[in-house]
């Protein structure tokens, strides 16, 4: 059976989006396959896949057409046609779906276990088949090749994961990642939890994106329950999101310089980051702003004078960071390490719909805040910071430009600040479904929730941007020397916990 590639814009011509901006449609097996082929043909981006009861659902989007959809298909004998057979980016998500939820993605080319390393003492709630302990890495053949296994425990203060390098002398010919070491069963923990508990878990999917994840969860719950968060809370949410973005971008620029042995730059950058975290602690009560966003608004009363304090902070951040940028741009020995290192092609970032600096440094003009603005962002507030080169240097510059843009954005948000309530009550006993996508510092973060009649989470799915960035790190390092891996890795800064959940 051949199904021609189907464009989302074609299939949804009549459909109306829900309040959360996502169209919801049911698909037949043929339509499902055609949409998957459409992803492979570049007609739309693949965003997420999960199981909800007897249905498998996927999120697809087409940014130029301003379209987002959640496509559902009824499972037949616990099976459905895999997306991965047509479109490689779906492969890892489907491997996870297969083992955790006991569904069979038909014709999925790679069915090796992903999260289940054969160590669990009990099954995941939907799991049918348990994995064995072994894992077969993809074969690499050739003269003079050797392998370098790295991890799961790495040499620094880093999350765990395993990298299997195959090198010819100093040159990496293949990297294969094996992740899942910090899998904590987030979806199962959230299912059946009340909203407050699920919010706390969601805030801890990836600690570095806690604000973005909490915001996505809050937006999804609010649209499911028909709640409008107060205006002042929306503004503070935006301020926290941008502060989170600046704090990580600044830190990453420093860490990349450190990996090129320019330690003084990192010292300067970590000072800027520390300044931001201390200000966050004073203004919002938590250095990482964890649990500060709650469904309905924000969960704290900003400290008196917080706006002025942040205004002064931005001045210091701007000065401190620009001094670093000036040095970065003027230091040939540093640029020698970052320019032309770890190149990712535009074709690959487009195919994988890689979000954040990974996509934008290779010319993919997607930023959730610009493509699908959510409160407090308005149409035109954000223009994606773009580079074409796709190397480490380009990923540094996207960050630099985004720090500058975020500083301006916070100032504009604070100028719109008004007094008023900060938290709207959530109605009790109302069921509903909602989804949301926010722009974390590393890219788009997607959350989907279905709330049951009892007010508890009946179905939960979250997808960090790392899912579609990790595979590209394998591509970025190809042909580079082993010693440049830390630079490439840091320039991506994917989340292990965000992917493993």
């Amino acid at each position: 059976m051949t199904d021609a590639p189907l464009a989302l814009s074609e299939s949804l011509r009549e459909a109306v989006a829900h309040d959360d901006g996502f169209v919801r449609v049911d698909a037949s097996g043929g339509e499902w396959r055609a949409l998957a082929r459409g992803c492979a043909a570049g007609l739309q981006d693949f965003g997420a896949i999960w199981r909800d009861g007897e249905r498998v659902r996927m999120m697809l989007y087409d940014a130029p057409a301003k379209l987002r959809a959640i496509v559902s298909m009824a499972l037949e004998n616990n099976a459905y046609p895999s997306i991965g057979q047509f479109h490689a980016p779906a492969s890892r998500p489907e491997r996870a779906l297969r083992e955790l939820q006991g569904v069979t993605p038909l014709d999925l080319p790679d069915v090796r276990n992903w999260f289940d390393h054969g160590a669990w003492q009990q099954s995941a709630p939907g799991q049918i088949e348990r994995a064995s302990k072994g894992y077969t890495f993809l074969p690499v053949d050739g003269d003079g090749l050797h392998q370098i296994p790295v991890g799961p425990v790495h040499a620094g203060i880093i999350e765990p994961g395993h990298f299997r390098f195959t090198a010819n002398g100093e040159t990496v010919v293949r990297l294969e990642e094996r992740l899942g070491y910090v899998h904590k069963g987030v979806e199962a923990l959230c299912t059946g939890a009340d909203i407050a508990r699920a919010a706390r878990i969601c805030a801890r999917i990836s600690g570095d994106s806690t604000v973005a994840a909490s915001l996505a969860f809050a937006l999804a719950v609010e649209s499911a329950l028909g709640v409008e968060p107060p205006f002042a809370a929306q503004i503070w949410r935006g301020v926290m999101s941008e502060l989170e973005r600046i704090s990580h971008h600044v830190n990453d620029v420093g860490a990349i310089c450190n990996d090129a042995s320019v330690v003084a730059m990192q010292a300067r950058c970590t000072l800027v980051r520390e300044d931001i975290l201390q200000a966050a602690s004073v203004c919002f009560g938590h250095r990482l702003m964890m649990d500060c966003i709650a469904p309905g608004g924000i969960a704290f009363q900003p400290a008196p004078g917080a706006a002025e304090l942040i205004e002064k902070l931005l001045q210091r951040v701007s000065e401190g960071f620009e001094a670093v940028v000036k040095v970065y741009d003027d230091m040939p020995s540093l640029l020698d390490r970052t320019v032309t290192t770890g190149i990712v092609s535009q074709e690959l970032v487009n195919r994988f719909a890689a979000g954040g600096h990974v996509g934008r440094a290779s010319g993919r003009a997607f930023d959730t805040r610009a493509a699908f603005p959510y409160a407090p962002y308005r149409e035109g507030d954000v223009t994606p910071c773009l580079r074409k080169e796709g190397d480490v240097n380009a990923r540094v510059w996207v960050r630099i430009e985004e720090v500058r843009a975020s500083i301006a954005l916070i100032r504009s948000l604070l100028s719109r600040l008004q007094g008023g309530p900060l938290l709207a009550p959530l109605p009790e006993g109302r069921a509903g479904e909602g989804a949301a996508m926010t722009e974390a510092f590393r890219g788009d973060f997607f959350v989907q929730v279905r709330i049951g009649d009892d007010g508890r989470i009946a179905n939960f799915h979250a997808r960090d941007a790392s899912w579609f960035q990790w595979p590209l790190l394998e591509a970025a390092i190809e042909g580079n020397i082993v010693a440049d891996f830390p630079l490439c890795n840091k320039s991506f800064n994917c989340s292990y916990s965000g992917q493993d959940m």
Partner: protein
Amino acid sequence: MRSLLLRSLLDGPAVIQPPAAGSEALLELAKALGERARNKLGRSLAIREVDAGSCNGCELEIHALNNPVYDVERFGLKFVASPRHADVLLVTGPVTWNMKEALERTYAATPSPKYVVALGDCAANCGVFAGSYACVGPVSAVIPVDLTIPGCPPAPMTILEGMMALVERAS
């Protein structure tokens, strides 16, 4: 670069006053360590950080310990790349089943005398991840723990208080 370095020199140190060793941490350590290994290590501890399942929030704050404000190396606390070089394992996260073996092997690779610090609420009691099929339990369910530093994540000053107590008692 020269102006940046010059500025770093002229600005003076960014470091904060060190906190006193945390009194609760001191008490806990007094119970855990007693007199063992005192004077063996000198006033210096090499720390190997192990993420055994964390959300990476704790790692962010451990990183902060190395920034010029907290600058833990001035207290003789140094993060090392190998457990072979370590006196202390600083473990974060609820220990996942997938990380259990790696944690046990890291512990086995650390020479005695060695101390284990369980950092963060997850390491102490699994935090929000308690009850998951994918988690073994707190760090103490897998290896013996000498000191617990609670918090989600604990702020650098809190971590520093705990570590100062460790220097006081263990060295």
